[in-house]
């Protein structure tokens, strides 16, 4: 009897303990850290100051970030200066005065916002820079390793324009805006390759200002001087179509290799298929945007970390795209990202 009582008691105890255990597991099915994460993002304010929202890469970034913001309940506002540096300065000043939790910025050049970024950090605002850096380093930079980009592009030309079978050793660098971060750092990479391949001749080095017609004019003039030109490298696929047009008009598409970089939008792939461009080093801006979205989450989750106290850099992946792989995810369309 006593044994039975004991057994019953033990059984009841076990049951109680089990049910208690059940209760606790029911409480703990919430994913570890999820609640504070959601809490930390909710209602936060993010302001993005781009160079111009008319560019393909910018549009893809914002589509991704807005999706991220809608999911986690923070707000993201775009203050588009539309390529006007003065309007950009005003947008930055306005953003700093509003004291958001985070400012995302795409710098038109390395100097213009340098002081403003210092001011923002001093005011306790976290700053994430995308793809175009300022001379001032802030909490985070997500974008290209532009020195590597310069190395990759000139390296591609070195493959075609050195050695006994090359048409000639003459190459052209169609720059963008000479004060822009991409331009300055790409030049460093280019110079490394030129040093390693002394037979390469840089016959022209002029900025086309990211404009296709300017790129076409420079290329046409250079082709008159150097009919045996071997390669052209540029800074943006939407501008280098102009160089491609000049090469096509001269009937030298088989002779001149045109290499550039781009955000990976479908228009770039079209330009490859039309034979206007040969190689695009694609930095896939939607992926850049996802990496930046991770940084947004991280920066918003740690209000205890002081603005500017830690400085992070992340270079996104670069894919070499030519006729063989100008399909699928290497050619995104904005509507498909939405």
């Amino acid at each position, binding site marked *: 009897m006593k044994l039975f009582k004991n057994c019953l008691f033990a059984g009841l105890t076990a049951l109680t303990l089990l049910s208690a255990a059940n209760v606790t597991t029911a409480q703990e099915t919430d994913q570890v850290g999820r609640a504070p994460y959601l809490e930390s993002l909710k209602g936060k304010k993010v302001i993005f100051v781009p160079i111009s929202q008319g560019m393909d890469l910018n549009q893809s970034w914002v589509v991704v970030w807005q999706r991220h913001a809608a999911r986690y309940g923070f707000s993201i506002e775009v203050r588009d200066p539309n390529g006007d540096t003065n309007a950009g300065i005003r947008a930055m000043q306005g953003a700093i005065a509003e004291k958001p939790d985070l400012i995302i910025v795409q710098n038109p050049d390395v100097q213009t916002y340098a002081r403003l970024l210092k001011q923002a950090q001093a005011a306790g605002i976290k700053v994430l820079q995308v793809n175009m850096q300022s001379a001032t380093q802030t909490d985070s930079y997500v974008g290209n390793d532009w020195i590597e980009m310069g190395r990759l592009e000139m390296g591609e030309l070195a493959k075609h324009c050195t050695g006994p079978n090359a048409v000639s050793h003459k190459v052209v660098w169609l720059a963008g805006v000479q004060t822009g971060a991409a331009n300055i750092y790409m030049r460093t990479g280019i110079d490394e390759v030129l040093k390693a391949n002394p037979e390469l001749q840089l016959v022209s080095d*002029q900025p086309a200002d990211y404009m296709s017609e300017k790129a076409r004019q420079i290329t046409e003039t250079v082709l*008159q001087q150097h009919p045996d030109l071997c390669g052209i490298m540029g800074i943006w696929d*939407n501008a280098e179509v102009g160089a491609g047009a000049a090469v096509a008009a001269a009937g030298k598409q088989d002779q001149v290799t045109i290499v550039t970089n781009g955000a990976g939008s479908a228009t770039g792939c079209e330009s490859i298929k039309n034979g206007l461009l040969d190689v695009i080093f694609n930095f896939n801006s939607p992926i850049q945007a996802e990496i930046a979205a991770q940084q947004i989450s991280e920066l918003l989750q740690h209000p205890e970390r002081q603005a500017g106290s830690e400085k992070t850099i992340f270079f996104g992946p670069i894919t070499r795209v030519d006729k063989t792989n100008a399909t699928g995810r290497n050619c995104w369309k904005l509507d498909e990202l939405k």
Partner: protein
Amino acid sequence: MKLAGSGKSDGARMGIKMSQELVVVAISVILFLVFSATLNNFLTQGNIIAILKNVSILGTLAVGMGFIVVGRGIDLTMVAVMVVGVAFSIWISTWGVDFTLAVVCGALLAAAIGLFTGIMVAIAEIPPIFATLAIASSVYGSGRIVFASDVLYAPSNIAWLKFIGSGTILGIPMVVVIFAAVAALMGFFLRKTRFGRLVYATGDNPNAARTTGLPTRPIIVTQYVLSALIAFTAGIIMLGLVTGIDTRLYNSSLIYDVLLVVVLGGIGLSGGQGGVRNVIVGTILVGILTNGMTILNFSYTSQNLIKSVILLGALAIDAIINPRDEQTSQSGDI
């Protein structure tokens, strides 16, 4: 030498126009000779064609601007109309509208904007510099909101567009032929038609023209419609050359380059004088200069510096040869 339709026999006036134009021609010739002597492959058929091809857009726009300035106006909407008109054509063609029809619609839009500008200037009597500055901004802004993207590409299978971009007539690129045709038509229009004479009359002295019963308002409205259509033509040239149109051109210095060509060529901003020949002279100087500096691989900054110094020099020489007096300064600037 008979001058392009100044309609004046005043010797002093004739001297001004001649000298400014001659100074620019002289500078062009000197540059041409220096470059020919010092640069390889400068004096080749290919390079001369490249020079002409590279100024075809600037030159076409300058013909339109010159036409407006002769009538004592100024049209700062040209670049905005050019990019928005052509971008509009591409935009509606993406809905499945036939591209050629879409281009016609774009031209109609450009004409409508020109009509509006003309009405604002001629009938609302807003000074052209303010009216066109505001309209340019509105046109570009509306375009930006509607199209979303800066760069729009034409469909790749349009035969006539390809012909404009890379076709030739008797070895001359189609874009140069179009520029020459626009310039020749405008020259004929200004010098040989009654309308052209009325434009000079209106530009020279608008009040006198109105008092004597000339239809100055319709003339001004027509001028702005035509300059908008010429701007659209320049946009089509660009589309043929590079397959796409970049609306950010509105933010570039292109509109000032166009004005520069006009003023440099010797069309006074006070109106009533000069003609297409001045525009061509100014365009060719800028073309030779840019081509030579590109060949020399000058840096962007030094190119701008040299360009500015040469342009300033041309204006200074003109000012020395023709000091301002009461007669020349009475009409003032815009």
